[in-house]
């Protein structure tokens, strides 16, 4: 039995994930959820663009976009129309086929991440047994799109930006995966729906260090400030998408916000108990948590100054990687030997461990001061 078999009874294949009154068969399920996911991703990405501009405006003591529509909510629509009607320029000596394919290759994997995200109990496209591994694997493909863009532009700044992208992505993938492993060990499953169901206490309390490592590594993976080295106007112009314009640029811009959305959704699912919550309907809880995580990401962007290239790499290898390994070791020991009757004691123990470890690392870990250390 496989995912490709259309005669499949879904409720039997994924027991407990679909309500029994779910109408229609296999293909209807796919069709409905593909439409839901597309609408969700596009609407939320536009919402995030507006929200980020408004929030950063508040942080910087200005208003932000407030002219188009009430509170400027239609600003992303106006921007989209503006970008779509611009001239589409292709570099004369670039590799045209690769140049054309690059935004697509960058966009498709980000969209595919949402296939395994539970919006509420069992409401997801495919409850894969390897859910979170699928997310990590699929999101590592989009770096190929960045590469293609940087290479095919035939521009040295694009190429340099793409090379920065790859060194950063490859380095931060390791602490990212290790911090997820802590959650997987606690939940005993890779499926995102089972991980949410396993969270009687949200895993942010049981895994405070893992949560911080994940947030830092994910911010680097999606090139948010303080790790946004791909787009450095004074060094490499706009990085890998310097030459892009019109619709293709819009697609890269959309990829950026879809990635932020993906990270917010994954953090919500892994650490904040997903759709679980009292009183309000599950879907609403899910959306509230996603917006909360996104606000924290914007807050970090508005507060923390950006790092230099060498500092970014040193931070990944000398700080995040050892901390993630220690976190995984501690989690494994706790799962094996900790008595079941004391769930709250472990929360305080882990918080204390997190504080001690972070203080310790900040003592003997220096970011090179004013010198460039390679």
């Amino acid at each position, binding site marked *: *039995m*496989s*995912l*490709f*078999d*259309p005669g499949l009874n879904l409720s039997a294949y994924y027991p407990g994930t679909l309500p029994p009154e779910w109408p229609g068969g296999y293909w209807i399920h796919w069709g409905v959820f593909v439409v839901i996911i597309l609408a969700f991703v596009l609407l939320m990405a536009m919402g995030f663009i507006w929200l980020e501009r408004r929030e950063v405006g508040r942080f910087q003591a200005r208003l932000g976009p407030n002219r188009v529509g009430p509170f400027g909510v239609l600003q992303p629509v106006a921007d989209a129309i503006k970008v779509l009607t611009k001239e589409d320029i292709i570099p004369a000596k670039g*590799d045209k*086929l*690769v140049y054309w394919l690059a935004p697509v290759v960058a966009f498709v994997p980000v969209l595919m991440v949402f296939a395994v995200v539970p919006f509420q109990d069992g409401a997801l496209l495919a409850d*894969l*047994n*390897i859910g979170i*591994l*699928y997310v*990590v*694997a*699929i999101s*590592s*493909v989009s*770096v*190929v799109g960045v*590469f*293609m863009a*940087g*290479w095919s532009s035939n521009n040295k700044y694009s*190429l340099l930006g*793409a*090379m920065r992208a*790859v060194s950063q*992505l*490859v380095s931060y*993938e390791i602490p990212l995966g290790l911090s997820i492993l802590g959650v997987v060990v606690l939940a005993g499953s*890779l499926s995102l729906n089972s991980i949410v169901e396993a969270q009687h206490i949200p895993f942010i309390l049981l895994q405070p260090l893992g949560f911080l490592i994940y947030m830092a590594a994910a911010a680097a993976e999606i090139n948010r400030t303080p790790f946004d080295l791909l787009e450095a106007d004074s060094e490499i112009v706009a990085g890998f998408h310097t030459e892009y314009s019109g619709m293709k640029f819009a697609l890269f811009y959309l990829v950026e916000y879809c990635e932020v959305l993906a990270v917010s959704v994954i953090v919500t699912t892994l650490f904040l108990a997903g759709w679980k919550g009292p009183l309000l309907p599950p879907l609403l809880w899910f959306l509230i948590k996603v917006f909360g995580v996104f606000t924290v990401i914007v807050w970090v962007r508005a507060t923390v100054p950006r790092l230099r290239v060498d500092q970014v790499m040193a931070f990944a290898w000398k700080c995040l990687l050892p901390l993630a390994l220690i976190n995984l070791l501690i989690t494994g020991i706790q799962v094996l030997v900790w008595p079941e009757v004391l769930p709250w004691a472990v929360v305080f123990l882990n918080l204390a461990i997190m504080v001690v470890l972070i203080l310790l690392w900040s003592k003997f870990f220096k970011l090179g001061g004013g010198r460039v250390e390679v």
Partner: protein
Amino acid sequence: MGLVIAFWVLAVVGIAAALAVVLLRDIFRAALSLVLCFLAVAGIYVTLSADFLAAVQVLIYVGAISVLIILAIMLTREVKRGSPSGRLRVPALVVAILFLGTVVFALVNTSWRISSVSPLVPTTAAIGGSLFGEGGFILPVEIAAVLLLAAVVGAIVLVREK
């Protein structure tokens, strides 16, 4: 039926991409074809109900190894258009024909058995058990770990200043 269609589509894509890797003159496009080939192989794993293997194939081969290959291409100047002809054409041809002969011989002479047992769900527990459980492959896993550690230490020693 769906499985058969998926298999043939993936097989044709995979072989076409593999041919493109060898035949394309543009070395960057050849590397991209290699990515496509790896993805098609991952798709074939999915049709075989080996979901864990498929995800790891994408993670390791597409996300890491192809990226390293492309990075090496980017660091190499003056190979942007066309691969230069080497002096070792004839020995390469001999080795390639020998390799092809071996593979075809192995394919033809193996009796391919199709298991009637339905695939395991989930596969991760079974893989973990056979890698780390009793009577499993714990020794090869540890040997591989030591080998990788040695490689990492060696790389650090090689690039170290002084």
